């Protein structure tokens, strides 16, 4: 065990402690609670960063309570986990809730979201992952309704019902895995999987787990909540849910694929789900009549791309998944910032470039990147994905063709909006952006441009993270040193 691995628990426990204390701190003023929350999120960025630089290729492992794996729960901190701990905290920092949307309670829920999400990516135990998934889920249900908007309650309740049903499916899946393998530790399951989970039971368990985690990961067919919730929730919540939380569920699916389910049937299953998700998402986005829904459906399609990337074998697939996920985590929240001001039918956006040139310019930049125009980061993300798919050949070539077709649809609806924005205003003009309205999106735009300049080093770093995440052997060896 590496020295200092005990601190692996801090990105989970510190925000949790803060969340428990926040209602008490709020007695001395809401501002103090807000400050404490923000400080803790910044601490989490720092913790993610230190973990990233500390682990290198050797992941940090800690057995909680001193109970060695597979008896106790272990945390497994590799660069992938460190990356998402930091990204989640950055997202929460940029989109920290406004005081008018729930106040201290919303701060508390955001901290809990950060704690739960960090646990989700760090945990190395199947049931523990479920518990953290539930924390993230319940916090999102609450935040989804925090706008006080009329539509919010209905959307959040339908989201909750679907999510709770998904969680029940996950539990059945965990039960099947446990009945077959007799253990919940991911590394231990990985060790036993070829023998115990290669048959139909394993496939069914995988199906149930993907359906359950797919609710958060916006996978077809359990993503019906997406347009409703993203339209009704406060913009800042939508940005966090679409930008980061959906990717955390993808990280879980990634771990399951790498460690447990390498069955060709399981891979084909996920690939089919991913392709349907992409196609359904892009076409619904094309047909959507307002900006918010367009982006909600486009977000579904992007997560379909991530899922598709995960099916591509070995490091190439994981690299592509991380790249697409990170790019989307930067671009989509910025889109939602714009959509929050430009509500209503798309026709009403005419004249937008005149009223808000900065927003319109940013929109074009984001659109170009998400479509994949070089040299923007979106191009590199799609290139890695398509390259991996063509290298793998076979069904992957078909999948790559689907991705290309989807890109055409994507370009069609995004340029349609761009054209609309540059039209002269017909009736009422679209809303004007105050600097504070647009600043989170501008910040993300700057991040996008900086990433464009540093594509090469970022690519190298991500390749390293992907390579170590793809290495199931070293995962098992690190967690269960005595049992290989």
């Amino acid at each position, binding site marked *: 065990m590496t020295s200092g691995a005990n601190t692996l628990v801090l990105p989970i426990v510190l925000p949790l402690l803060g969340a428990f204390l926040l209602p008490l701190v709020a007695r001395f003023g809401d501002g103090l609670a807000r400050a404490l929350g923000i400080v803790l999120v910044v601490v989490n960025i720092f913790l993610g960063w230190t973990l990233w630089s500390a682990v290198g290729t050797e992941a940090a492992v800690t057995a909680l309570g001193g109970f060695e794996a597979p008896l106790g729960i272990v945390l497994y901190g590799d660069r992938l986990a460190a990356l998402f701990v930091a990204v989640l905290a950055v997202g929460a920092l940029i989109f920290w809730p406004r005081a008018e949307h729930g106040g201290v309670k919303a701060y508390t829920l955001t901290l809990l979201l950060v704690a739960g999400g960090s646990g989700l990516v760090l945990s190395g135990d199947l049931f523990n992952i479920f518990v953290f998934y539930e924390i993230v889920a319940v916090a999102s249900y609450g935040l989804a309704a925090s706008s006080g908007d009329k539509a919010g309650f209905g959307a959040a309740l339908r989201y909750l019902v679907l999510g709770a049903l998904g969680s029940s499916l996950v539990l059945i899946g965990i*039960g099947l895995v446990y009945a077959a393998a007799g253990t919940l530790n991911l590394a231990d399951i990985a060790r036993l999987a070829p023998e115990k989970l290669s048959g139909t039971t394993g496939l069914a368990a995988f199906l149930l787990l993907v359906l359950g985690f797919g609710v958060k990961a916006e996978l077809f067919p359990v993503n019906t909540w997406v347009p409703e919730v993203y339209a009704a929730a406060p913009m800042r919540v939508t940005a966090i849910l679409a930008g980061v939380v959906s990717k955390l569920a993808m990280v879980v699916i990634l771990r399951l694929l790498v460690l447990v389910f390498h069955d060709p049937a399981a891979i084909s299953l996920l690939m089919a789900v991913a392709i349907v998700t992409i196609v359904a998402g892009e076409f619904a986005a094309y047909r959507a009549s307002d900006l918010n829904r367009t982006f909600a459906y486009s977000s579904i399609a992007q997560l379909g791309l991530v899922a598709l990337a995960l099916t591509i074998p070995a490091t190439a697939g994981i690299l592509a998944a991380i790249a697409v996920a990170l790019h989307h985590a930067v671009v989509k929240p910025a889109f939602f910032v714009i959509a929050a001001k430009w509500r209503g039918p798309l026709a009403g956006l005419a004249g937008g470039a005149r009223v808000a040139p900065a927003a319109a310019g940013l929109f074009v930049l984001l659109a170009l990147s998400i479509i994949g125009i070089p040299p923007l980061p979106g191009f590199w993300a799609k290139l890695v994905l398509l390259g991996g798919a063509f290298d793998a050949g076979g069904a992957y070539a078909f999948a790559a063709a689907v991705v290309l077709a989807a890109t055409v649809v994507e370009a069609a609806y995004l340029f349609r909006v761009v054209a609309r924005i540059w039209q002269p205003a017909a009736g009422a003009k679209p809303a004007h952006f105050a600097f504070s309205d647009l600043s989170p999106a501008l910040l993300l735009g700057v991040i996008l441009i900086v990433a464009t300049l540093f594509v090469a080093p970022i690519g190298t770093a991500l390749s390293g993270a992907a390579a170590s995440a793809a290495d199931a052997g070293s995962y098992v060896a690190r967690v269960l040193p005595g049992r290989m």
Partner: protein
Amino acid sequence: MSPDALLVAEYLGRALYGGAILLIAIGIYAMVARYNLMRVLLGLALVESGVNLFLVAIGFRPEAAAPIIVGGVTDVPMVDPLPQALVLTAIVIGVGVLALAAALLIRVKETYGTLDTREVAKFLAAEPADAAPAAGTAVAGTPARETVNAGSAS
């Protein structure tokens, strides 16, 4: 185990797994085929119960003791304690989720005046042109909604 005991175990397994499947199926039926959100919540509670039964049944072994050491005797065969711990966790999680759902349900009833899933879905799918500015006005006043309100009040 004697052949008799094996037979008993087989029937026991059928009863428990069958009960779990039926409970899950009845719960999901209540969630998808009935149109009142309260019924959906009750269905959810049934599904969770069914899953919990399944998990406990996994860990059962015939002729084994409960996982509590009595009088320091440690070498008796015991049922698997791990699924039991998981189910304890799952029960508490279920209650938490149910409570939040109840809170949302109260607000849905209060703001929409109905708990009919079809009405709520219609409201959420409405074109943004009518829905977005309608935070309090347009939609509540549509004739269809008024009939539903009148129906549930009588």
